């Protein structure tokens, strides 16, 4: 066990956890970071700096609904003949910490329950004849690796602090971490440091009641939130609390600029949906502007109901009030990080998922066992224990009844009413991953078709529990415009922006699609279909994303890359179709070749309508 004070680096994450220790009403801290950076070590060490006896509960990833919420403890109930109530994991974390490692891999119903508990500060148990309220006011500390997928926004909205993502690659710090793990540090030093830190936090908790924040400062934070396009109003309170807690840590009575900056950095920036607009300064007019990062396309504000003149004046004010603060922070926040060894494509294990038939969203046969419910014996797997529990109270009465009628009974009399069926949650809809070639002159056209197809698939997504994701590729690498989603609203919004032109990074598209598919698989989606809308002429290698000099590659190499990827994708059991929208009659047959490599089907639809694409995908 490594102590909080022994952990090297990750200063921002440490600061975040200290703020939470000072003011638990910040709700929690989320730490995104790559594997092996020590984020879990840090999160577990968080208990070190909390007051003695604070509960620290770790949430198992595969937690079942009844363990999470609590309910009747069947064994104890049967043994004692009286109903014994078991508290769930959420209420065990009351007044303490709920720690979730790999937050983004958590099952979506578990996420919903956590959100519900956070919004009430309690768990409402209405299960198996039980009706109770268990207090569950906890701090959520979550870590996750962004390459495993994103955490649901609804949950993040209830967690005050999100540490900006920074991959750890400071060599010296790493070395020290290693030496720590090897146990070369002095235990006594550690204990002294921890005591000191606990003292500082205790004092800050006292100080928190004496820190004030001015109206102007509150306005500044709110304006920043608006200009970053953060959704919802809950963040305002979190940002203020973070600033106050930081001032309290410094034993100050007033919030200063540093506190505000930290609040912007830890609370607001990670939730930004757009870059604040700003007037370039004189100096910059003379210099060349750096190109805007492609990570975050600008989005139109969503306040359709606000009169336009009002928003304009807002924007003007922002520029007067908070430009320096934001600019500085923005630069920090948008350090794009590229995955290393992007070229190390591991050959996927040769497993074939069944593709073709579309399963049902809810069923009684496959998937994860969620709960039991009354049902017919024929309609699924019988949940034995719940069935017996349900039959138990009636045994005496039934045996007596049968005896009256002179019917002999076995050891157990079970009636059809007792039967409980196991219910499984199986999100076995299909995930359609659209990959749209956004390079060249046909890009706009393809995009329109793809958008139409996405929209029309989503129209019926509910029926089949299907999801749709959209990846566009052009220039140096592919970009996920729409992560797997069922939301028509979101699709409409995310697909509104589309730069076109540039090279065709086909391999990057396949890789991005494959990664998206793998993430979806961890969340229980089994069936995946690639819908590629392209002429199949890739001309940009994977390496171009990391090294501009590598953009020129010989044709054979390009083909090798695509082929290796296509094979892996095929052996991963992913179905594909390639829609060739090439107008040119003298097509060189690149797209059919791509379809062949993917083991998929090929459609030539030069004037494809959205409906035709959907038809092809569903055929």
């Amino acid at each position, binding site marked *: 066990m490594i102590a909080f004070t022994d952990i090297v680096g990750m200063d921002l994450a440490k600061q975040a956890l200290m703020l939470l220790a000072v003011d638990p009403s910040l709700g929690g801290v989320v730490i995104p970071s790559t594997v092996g950076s020590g984020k879990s070590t840090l999160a577990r060490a968080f208990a070190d700096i909390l007051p003695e006896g604070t509960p620290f509960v770790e949430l198992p990833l595969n937690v079942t609904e009844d363990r999470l919420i609590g309910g009747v403890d069947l064994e104890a109930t049967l043994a004692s003949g009286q109903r014994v109530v078991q508290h769930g994991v959420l209420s065990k974390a009351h007044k303490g910490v709920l720690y979730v490692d790999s937050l983004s891999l958590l099952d979506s119903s578990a996420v919903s329950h956590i959100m519900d508990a956070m919004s009430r500060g309690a768990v409402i148990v209405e299960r198996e004849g039980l009706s109770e309220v268990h207090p569950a006011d906890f701090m959520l500390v979550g870590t996750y690796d962004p390459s495993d997928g994103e955490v649901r926004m609804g949950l993040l909205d209830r967690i005050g602090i999100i540490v900006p993502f920074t991959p750890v690659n400071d060599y010296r710090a790493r070395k020290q971490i290693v030496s720590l793990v090897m146990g070369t540090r002095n235990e006594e030093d550690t204990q002294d440091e921890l005591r000191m830190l606990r003292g500082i936090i205790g004092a800050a908790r006292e100080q928190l009641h004496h820190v004030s924040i001015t109206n102007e400062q509150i306005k500044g934070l709110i304006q920043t939130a608006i200009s970053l396009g953060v959704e919802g109003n809950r963040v305002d309170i979190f940002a203020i609390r973070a600033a106050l807690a930081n001032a309290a840590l410094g034993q100050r009575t007033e919030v200063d600029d540093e506190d505000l900056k930290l609040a912007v950095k830890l609370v607001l920036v990670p939730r930004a949906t757009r870059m604040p607009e700003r007037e370039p300064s004189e100096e910059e007019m003379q210099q060349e502007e750096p190109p805007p990062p492609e990570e975050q396309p600008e989005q139109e504000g969503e306040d359709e109901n606000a009169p336009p003149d009002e928003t304009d004046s807002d924007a003007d004010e922002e520029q007067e009030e908070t430009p320096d603060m934001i600019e500085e922070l923005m630069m920090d926040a948008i350090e794009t990080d590229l995955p290393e060894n992007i070229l190390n494509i591991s050959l996927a294990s040769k497993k074939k998922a069944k593709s073709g038939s579309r399963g049902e969203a809810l069923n009684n046969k496959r998937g994860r066992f969620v709960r039991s419910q009354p049902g017919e014996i024929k309609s699924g797997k019988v949940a034995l224990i719940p069935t017996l529990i349900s039959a138990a109270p*009636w045994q005496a009465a039934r045996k007596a009844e049968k005896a009256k009628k002179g019917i002999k009974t076995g050891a157990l009399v079970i009636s059809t009413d007792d039967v409980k069926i196991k219910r499984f949650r199986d999100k076995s809809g299909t995930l359609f991953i659209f990959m749209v070639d956004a390079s060249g002159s046909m890009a706009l056209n393809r995009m329109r078709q793809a958008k139409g197809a996405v929209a029309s698939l989503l129209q019926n997504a509910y029926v089949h529990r299907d999801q749709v994701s959209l990846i566009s590729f052009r220039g140096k690498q592919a970009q996920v415009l729409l992560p797997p989603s069922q939301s028509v609203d*979101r699709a*409409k919004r995310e697909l509104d922006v589309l730069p076109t032109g540039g090279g065709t990074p086909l391999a990057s598209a396949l890789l991005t699609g494959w990664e998206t598919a793998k993430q979806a698989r961890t969340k229980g989606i089994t069936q995946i279909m690639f819908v590629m809308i392209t002429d199949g002429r890739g001309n940009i290698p994977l390496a171009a994303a990391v090294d501009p000099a590598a953009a020129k590659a010989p044709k054979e190499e390009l083909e090798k890359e695509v082929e290796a990827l296509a094979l892996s994708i095929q052996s991963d059991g992913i179905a594909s179709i390639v829609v060739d929208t090439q107008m040119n009659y003298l097509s060189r047959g690149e797209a059919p070749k791509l379809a062949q490599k993917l083991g998929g089907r090929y459609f030539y639809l030069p004037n494809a309508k959205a409906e035709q694409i959907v038809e092809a995908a569903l055929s």
Partner: protein
Amino acid sequence: MAFPFTSIVGQEEMKLSLILNIIDPRIGGVLVMGHRGTGKSTTVRALAEVLPLIDRVKGDIYNRTVEQYIEMESGVKGAPVLKASDVKTEKIPVPVVDLPLGATEDRVCGTIDIEKALTSGVKAFEPGLLAQANRGFLYIDEVNLLDDHLVDVLLDVAASGKNVVEREGISIRHPARFVLVGSGNPEEGELRPQLLDRFGLHARIITINDVAKRVEIVKLRREYDENPEAFLKKVVRQQQKLQKEIVAAQKLLPKVSMDDSVLTDIARLCMALGIDGHRGELTITRTAHAFAALQGDTNVTMEHVRKIAGLCLRHRLRKDPLETVDAGEKIDRELAKVLGEAEVAA
């Protein structure tokens, strides 16, 4: 203790929808959809404090009125004939039942009381949340995440106003009329069309982008967090005032009337918007009556209709995902046409 309803800044659409449903529960509930962190649940959970009181039979688990009670209990074979004078009553606030996502079906519908069966061998019915919600509100936060299976149960009960439980030779029917209130974020998943259609009103909720309002929200919230009791004391007057307005509107409602010409205009509006069935017209008519009553008017005009048309129809328009025009704008445009107003140049 909940944050008080009258201290909630903005989100007028949602507040109005809820109040109209208190005035006339037949409007058929509210679906509140929109951005995260905009106070959806806070508002619904604040509702209980401003609801008027109702009379029920003392201690009755189904919150029945004396008439309902006598009618149901006298029907039982061998039961004594009951007289209204024999039945004790009490005043309770309109119930607001908060359905958690993890609820199991037996707790929603009610089930056999296991404990009684175990300890005394008696087969007794233990009512569930649907019984508690009778004559009140049933609230489902994150309604789009609720188990399909439970959604189906709720839809059946909401449609019939009755809950039927049959098990172990016991058959229980009890009244379950409630106003269904659902909230959610459309990004978390779309709502089934069948479910969407069941809600009378559809309020949209978005992030407030007015700095002054947001400062106000923050101030009130911080003051409340600091000392909830003192805060509630300060606003008790406003809370009572709102409650009085609601009660007055409830009393006025039976006296509110509507000319045939208004009804014709409503029908034309629904036709122009291509809304199927009569549910749209019915909802507008009821909601407009309730709105007029709230305003203290005894005659419904198209001006009342204009204020509530969006709430009633927004979710009933055919969904076209590529449509760039907002549903609300569409409704306004058609309304202007129906009323023969010159179209405002877009």
